[in-house]
């Protein structure tokens, strides 16, 4: 009698089991493509077609090919290109974001509201539109060929970064103003407040901004595709991998594409999992303006 009292009624237990089964099915659907690409990257047979869903024999030759066969695609070069752009982008973007967020969060000046509204309006333009125009501008400057292409990529990635200030501003807004006031009573200037008080207290958000802007060029496809055009030497990883799936290369390169996908995804996924706790900040930050 007493044991039954503690147990839940039968129908409730059935519901709970069903809920777990349902979750398991959903998780399987969501994980299946990732599992598939991970296994395909080790597939021994070449080509995009495979007569079974999962491969039947495995080897590491697809990975070896990425780092040894430079006849069509130079994967290490692509990694290096992306890395260079990513490092520059992450430094400039973070500086811009922190500067703008601090100015909007802590300073009160005449054009503040207006600047914030303007940035909201500019954000409504399809980003792709300015991208195409940037392409023409760089083409006229002769930056779409040769090493200047990297400068062009960095310029477009980092140039508008200041408009992504919302998350950092939301974070700065939560730091108590009395800290600033105390420091200024002691004679600190506003720039000292920024470097000595706000920045140390906002380490998480600074790290978050650094990491997300570093990951940006690894994830972006559109801009790099438009700017790079046929310049294979300056392809970023995303553009190069897209090319591997073109009709003329897919048979030979499909499995290496899968290998490249695994190589790229592991560090980016690690970065993401590391920074994910800040994602909920972004929504609550938006609520506060």
């Amino acid at each position, binding site marked *: 009698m007493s044991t039954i009292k503690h147990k839940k009624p039968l129908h409730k237990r059935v519901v709970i089991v069903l809920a777990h089964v349902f979750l398991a099915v959903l998780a399987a659907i969501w994980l299946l493509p990732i599992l598939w690409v991970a296994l395909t990257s080790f597939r021994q047979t070449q080509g995009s077609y495979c007569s079974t869903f999962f491969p039947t024999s495995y080897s590491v030759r697809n990975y070896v090919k990425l780092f040894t066969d430079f006849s069509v695609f130079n994967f290490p070069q692509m990694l290096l290109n992306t890395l260079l752009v990513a490092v520059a982008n992450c430094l400039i973007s973070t*500086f811009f974001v922190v500067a703008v967020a601090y100015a909007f969060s802590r300073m009160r000046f005449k054009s503040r509201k207006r600047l914030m509204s303007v940035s909201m309006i500019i954000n409504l333009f*399809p980003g792709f539109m*300015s991208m*195409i125009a940037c392409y023409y501008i760089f083409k006229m400057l002769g930056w779409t060929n040769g090493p200047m292409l990297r400068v062009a990529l960095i310029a477009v990635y980092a140039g508008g970064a*200041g*408009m992504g200030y919302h998350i950092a501003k939301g974070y700065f807004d939560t730091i108590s103003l009395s800290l600033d006031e105390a420091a200024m009573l002691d004679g600190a200037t506003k*720039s000292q407040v920024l470097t000595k008080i706000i920045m140390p207290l906002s380490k998480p958000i600074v790290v978050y901004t650094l990491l997300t802007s570093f990951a940006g060029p690894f*994830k972006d*496809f559109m801009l790099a595709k438009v700017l790079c055009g046929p310049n294979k030497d300056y392809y970023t990883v995303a553009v190069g991998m897209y090319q591997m799936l073109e009709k003329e290369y897919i048979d030979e390169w499909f499995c290496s594409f899968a290998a490249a996908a695994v190589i790229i995804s592991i560090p980016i996924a690690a970065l993401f999992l590391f920074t994910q706790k800040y994602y909920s900040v972004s*929504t609550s930050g938006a609520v506060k303006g």
Partner: protein
Amino acid sequence: MDKLTDTTPRPIQQEPITCRAALRGGSVAVKLSVLIGGLGCLVRGQLVKGALYLAAELFLLAYMAQSGLTNLSRLVTLGEMEQQKIWNEATSMFEYIDGDRSLVILLYGIVTVAFVLALVLLMRLSLKSAYLAELYARRGMKAPGIVQDVRELLDQRLHISLLSLPILGVLTFTVLPLVFMSCMAFTNYSILDNKLVLFDWVGLDNFRRVFNLGGSLGKTFWSVLGWTLSWAVIATASNYFLGMLLSLLINWKEIRIKKFWRFCFVLTVAVPHFVTLLIIRQMLQPNGAVNVALQNMGLIDAALPFFTDVTWSRVTVILINIWVSVPYVLLQLTGILQNIPAELYESARVDGAGPLVTFAKITLPYMLFVTMPYLITSFTGNINNFNVIFLTSQGLPRAVESTAGSTDLLITWLYKLTIDNQYYDIGAVIGILTFAALSVVSLVTFRFSGSYKNEEGFQ
């Protein structure tokens, strides 16, 4: 708090430092500062500041004289001279003389307009600082020197130092290109009639062509617009509700190993989108993994037309979008859901409300209120969702006579019009119209939600 360290003397703080006040109340030197930059500052002993104003003005004027004025005048016609071939008697060869290139003329024209605006701004600043310096002098005080000015830039006026570089970046790499592209909407820059080198202003002709339901272009536009809007509504709503339901399910107190389930879904967000999207496209090809698996199991005879049939393709991209975005929504909503005050649920339970009623009367209204800004961003994000379409269906299937496929959004159509087909004029029109559609939606919802106004509630 601002008064704590403000070094400007109080009487001067109360004076209005505007251009109008300066022109009305300033001396001759102040008034002349509109024409000769920094004159007022130089007179009052602010030598470095005055010299900087003057140098900047001279630089801008020199540019205007050297090439600026020509650039502006050529903006009117966008160039008329075609490339010419002239027989040279001396060398007995044809020589080519470069013609005008409208695109270059347009760009230089816009840059020059930006310089003119900068000049106007500079002269306003010069006038204001001259007036300020004079106000100091009238009260028998010494106007702040360059050292003090720089110190101010690191303190009370830090926002100027902080914002100038980011704003310059946005102006150069976002605003200037947008203006440039928008201008193309009013020209006939297109491969049609061979207008790629020399083109002209055509006013609103392109807009008329796009809106005209009778023409083939108009038909395409209205059908793409219709699909874009329904896509954005369906995609946003399905992601939001499915994400919320999933989040509620995992939050349910009876579910074990919550962290593991969340991790399963979050892992798919962690992998770069372009990778997962390209993989899914590959899996859904006629001879891709999914069709092969289904055929091996004997469930289907012929390959499923994932990207070749209109309805199949549209449903497929929506499902793919759910796959891509629901984990992201899950991530964003979990924290907010956990923050719903527990006593709300408690009182609902006491009143005998079932799970459905609780969801409809408590969870949903609360979530809609808190996440309205997120919903707007996600709606605009879906209108501009280039990757999900371009990397999976590529807009297919496409009718032969049309430039847009039946899953093309305005943004992917814009790509095809400009990059693939070189109809730059129409592409620019589509860009502007996308912006218009987004502004209307966002403005209406923002007014409606009102959470934008309540900014400093937290401090």
